[in-house]
Each structure stands twice: as structure tokens, then as C-alpha cells.
């Protein structure tokens, strides 16, 4: 995989800034005045109790929701109201809390579908499955096979993903997001429903993506072990408000976080 080369944004620059974002649905306030930033090449965890607004935050970032107030700046540009596919084309990829794979497609096709935005051969060649279309198909197939190798899912390459167990589906979903070669990768509970061994594997993939390609990652996860070990910085939400922001150890010691989220024994 190639690292997306972006001369302007070096490691450590603010890639995405969320400023005073609020989001409401009728009477429900999902987010209230939340501000934080995500820096280039870091792993940023978002944690908080259930219903705190973590998923909603990701949805705002990739354009699925539009904040009722506040603004989001990506790569230094204030984002206008945009459709999700525009965000995706701008370099933001994500996985979903409730697996959202294309159930009837095979693993390979799912990941290939993730490459759609990188493929450009025209309709005519597609019709004949020849020339540029075939060339492109093979070229991207090669890339996708790399991802498959990387994620160690060769054996299920041709299985329809609807039949896969939950944990593998999550892995395929990660693969699909990686296929977009994103600059910012949003992961919504990538390790829910996995056992320890699988979590370890998943952690390894996340770290590797982050370290080798410098991909910036925003991560929602309820397993504190994972969050503490992987993330560079953590932001904590509760009832739609930010209650803490800092390094894992800072956050872990914060009394409000302990009360709201961690409970006692951590």
C-alpha cells in the first residue's frame, strides 16, 4: 500500500478540527458544544457511556449528519454542508458499529467496491470488460489482494460476507475502508464481539496501518484495555458533552471519567 503523500500536512499538524459542534434531533440533543481536534497520524480514541454521542460525532465528521451548530475543518478548510460521498472522496473512510457490509457480495468484491472511487475506466470499456477496464480491474485487484493478505482473510476471499461470523465481518469492513486509502480512518467499535485473540489481531492491524502508512485514525471502543494501549489521545463524551480530553493516562485518572464511564475497578 502506498502512503497518501500530502506535503502540507506533516505528522502532528491538525488534520481535522471540530469546533463547538452541536447536533440535535427534535428534542434529543446528541451533541452539545463539542470541540476537539485530530492530528495527522495519531490514533485518537473517542470514548464515553452508551448514547453519549460518539457515533453521532463520527457521523458529523463524514457528512452523514450535518451539525446544527459549530463547524468542522478538515485539512484546514471549513467544510460546507456536504453529502457523505463527498467526504469519502475527500479522504475519510469509516467502519460501522452495526456491520454495514454488502451482504451478498464476496469479501473480495466488498473490498473491491471500496476501490470504486479510485477506478475511472469508462462505461464503454466496462461494457466489453476489455482494454483499460480489465487493466484497471487487475491493477486494483492486486492492491486488494495486498489488503486481504495483510488482514489474513485469504481463506474467505470468495465467501459471501453475509455468511461470515461477526468478527470476520468486522475485519472485512476494515479492509473495505483501507481500500479507499483514506487519510482519516474512522473506526466505530471495531472490536466489539471479538475475543481476546481476535482483539489482539485487530490491534495489530490498526497499529500497523497507523505506523506504516501514517493514516490518521479515530477510534471508538468500549474495551478500555485497547483504548489505553493503542491511542495517543482520548476524548471522553458524556450526554453529548466533552468531559475530558488528553492522553490515556490523564483521562484514566480523571474523576469525572471514572464516575461516568469506567466504573470502579479499573
Amino acid at each position, binding site marked *: 500500500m502506498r502512503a497518501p503523500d500530502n506535503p502540507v500536512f506533516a505528522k502532528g499538524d491538525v488534520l481535522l478540527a471540530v469546533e463547538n459542534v452541536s447536533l440535535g*434531533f427534535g428534542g*434529543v440533543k446528541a451533541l452539545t458544544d463539542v470541540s476537539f481536534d485530530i492530528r495527522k497520524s495519531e490514533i485518537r480514541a473517542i470514548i*464515553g*457511556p*452508551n*448514547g*453519549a454521542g*460518539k*457515533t*453521532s460525532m463520527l457521523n458529523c465528521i463524514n457528512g452523514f449528519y450535518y451539525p446544527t451548530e459549530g463547524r468542522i475543518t478538515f485539512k484546514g478548510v471549513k467544510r460546507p454542508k456536504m453529502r457523505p460521498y463527498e467526504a469519502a472522496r475527500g479522504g475519510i473512510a469509516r467502519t460501522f*458499529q*452495526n456491520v454495514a457490509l454488502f451482504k451478498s457480495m464476496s469479501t473480495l468484491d466488498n473490498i473491491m467496491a471500496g476501490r470504486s472511487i479510485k477506478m475511472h475506466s469508462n462505461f464503454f470499456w466496462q461494457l466489453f470488460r476489455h482494454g483499460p477496464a480489465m487493466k484497471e480491474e487487475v491493477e486494483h485487484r492486486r492492491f486488494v489482494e495486498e489488503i486481504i493478505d495483510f488482514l489474513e482473510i485469504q481463506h474467505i476471499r470468495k465467501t459471501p460476507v453475509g*455468511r*461470515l*461470523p*461477526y*468478527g*470476520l465481518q468486522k475485519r472485512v469492513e476494515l479492509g473495505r475502508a483501507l481500500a479507499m486509502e483514506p487519510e482519516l480512518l474512522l473506526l466505530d*467499535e471495531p472490536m*466489539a*464481539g*471479538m*475475543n*481476546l*485473540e*481476535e*482483539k*489482539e*489481531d485487530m*490491534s*495489530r492491524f490498526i*497499529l500497523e496501518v497507523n505506523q506504516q502508512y501514517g493514516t490518521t485514525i479515530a477510534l471508538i471502543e*468500549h474495551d*478500555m*484495555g*485497547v483504548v489505553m*494501549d*493503542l491511542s495517543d489521545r482520548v476524548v471522553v463524551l458524556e450526554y453529548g458533552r466533552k468531559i475530558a480530553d488528553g492522553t490515556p493516562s490523564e483521562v484514566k485518572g480523571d474523576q469525572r471519567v471514572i464516575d461516568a*464511564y*469506567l*466504573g470502579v*475497578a*479499573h
Partner: protein
Amino acid sequence: MSSAVQMQPQATQTVLTVNNIEVVYDHVILVLKGVSLNVPKGGIVALLGANGAGKTTTLKAISNLLRAERGEVTKGSIEFNGERVDKLSPNELVRRGCIQVLEGRHCFGHLTIEENLLTGAFTRKDGNAAIRRDIEAIYEYFPRLKQRRTSMAGYTSGGEQQMCAIGRAMMSKPSMILLDEPSMGLAPQIVEEIFEIVRKLNATEGVSFLLAEQNTNMALKYATYGYILETGRVVMDGPAQMLRENEDVKEFYLGVSEGDRKSFRAVKSYKRRKRWLA
């Protein structure tokens, strides 16, 4: 269901017996290759295993929901309270006191949280007052649900839906609950809360549990007995205590090998091998 009925003479009797079942999906995909297990009356039994081992399939085979997914039990038998139940419809099983909490939420998206809970009481005949009381009890367990009681379940967050699904199953006052990954997607303190509820229901009302769980740590802490499933077969079973002390289980499921928890950062890519597969 009054618990008096369950408190029949033999205390060590098994509520649920699964006898060497084989499950095929879509006529061609063989998933369970002979699984047997027992749940003693008033026991909490954990069903552990990696992804795709067949935990969910086992639970669905028991609750007879397989047919709805074009799966089929092709061999073996399932008994609940001494009665063959493989041919019953799911709702008859619920009436007999055995209910499943489906993996991956499955709330009724267009119903409000409260209506979801009410549908859980569909099979109950003990009147509105009792049902209201139980709803309040569930709100007490999950205060978050109370706040969102009038929201459509489809719009609530993943964790809220999970709580809703669990609460809904509890509403039917079952004598046995098949819990599929209850902790998935829940915040740490809620996870503990849920296991506490399990323990409480088990202790005070004698509800038996069959618990498919990835969070082995928790599961083995609360369960009395455990089965470990690998690719459709039971590879190991024993009292929870014994499993907790097994070296393999420690390494692969509990993450404490040689007494210490290792960091997720430290994991190296190497092919590990489970001893029982040797």
C-alpha cells in the same frame, strides 16, 4: 412464569439438554458437527469460542429460530425440561419459559423503547399492573432506557439498543434465557451491571442462563460451567473454575499468560497454536 413451578423436586436436574446436534445452513453449509451440552437447573453456563465457532448457531438451534434463516437441525435432539422441543415453534418455546436475546440487537426499530419492552411481555397473562412493575424494574437496571423511553428504538445508539433487547427478553419472565453476546457494544460499567443482573436473576428467581460470550473474563467469572466451541465442535468443557485455570484458556481467552496482562501494543504477528488442536 412463577418460579415455584421450576422448583421441582430434583435440584440437580438439567433444564436443557442438547444432544449431538448437527446444523446445516442452506442445505449445503455444515456448521455444527455434533454439539452436545447440558444446562443444569438454575445454572449459568457459558458458551465460549472464537468467531464463527457456532455459538450463535447453537443458541438459535435451541430456540428454533434457525428455520427462519433457512438453517436446519439435521441430527440430534434438544430437550427442554425433559420435553423434545426441536419441532416446536419459537413462540411455544417462549411460552414454556425459554427465550433468546439475539446477537446484534434486533430491536423493533419503529417501536419506541417502551413499546419494545411491552412486546416482550406479549406471552404474559398476569395483567397490566405486573407488567408495569417489571418495566419499572428494568428502567432501574438501565436508567439510560428510561431517558429514551419514547424514542424510536431505531434511532437510539447501539448500546441503548442492546440494553433494550436484554430488557425486552427479561419482560417475558422466562425460566431460561439464552443470551448471545450481551456485553457487545456496552460501556464497561454497563457490562458489569448486566452480569450482576444475570447473577441476581439466577439467585433470586432461579433463572437458568446459557451465555454465548466473547468476553471470556466476565463470562467465566459469573458462570458455573463452560463449554468451548471450535469450528462447530465442543473442544473442551468443565466447571468455570477449571477452565479459568487452564493454560490455553488463559492465553487465548483471558489474555493472562504467565500471570501478567500483556499490552495490545506488544502483540506480535506470529502464528500461535492452540494445544488442544494438536
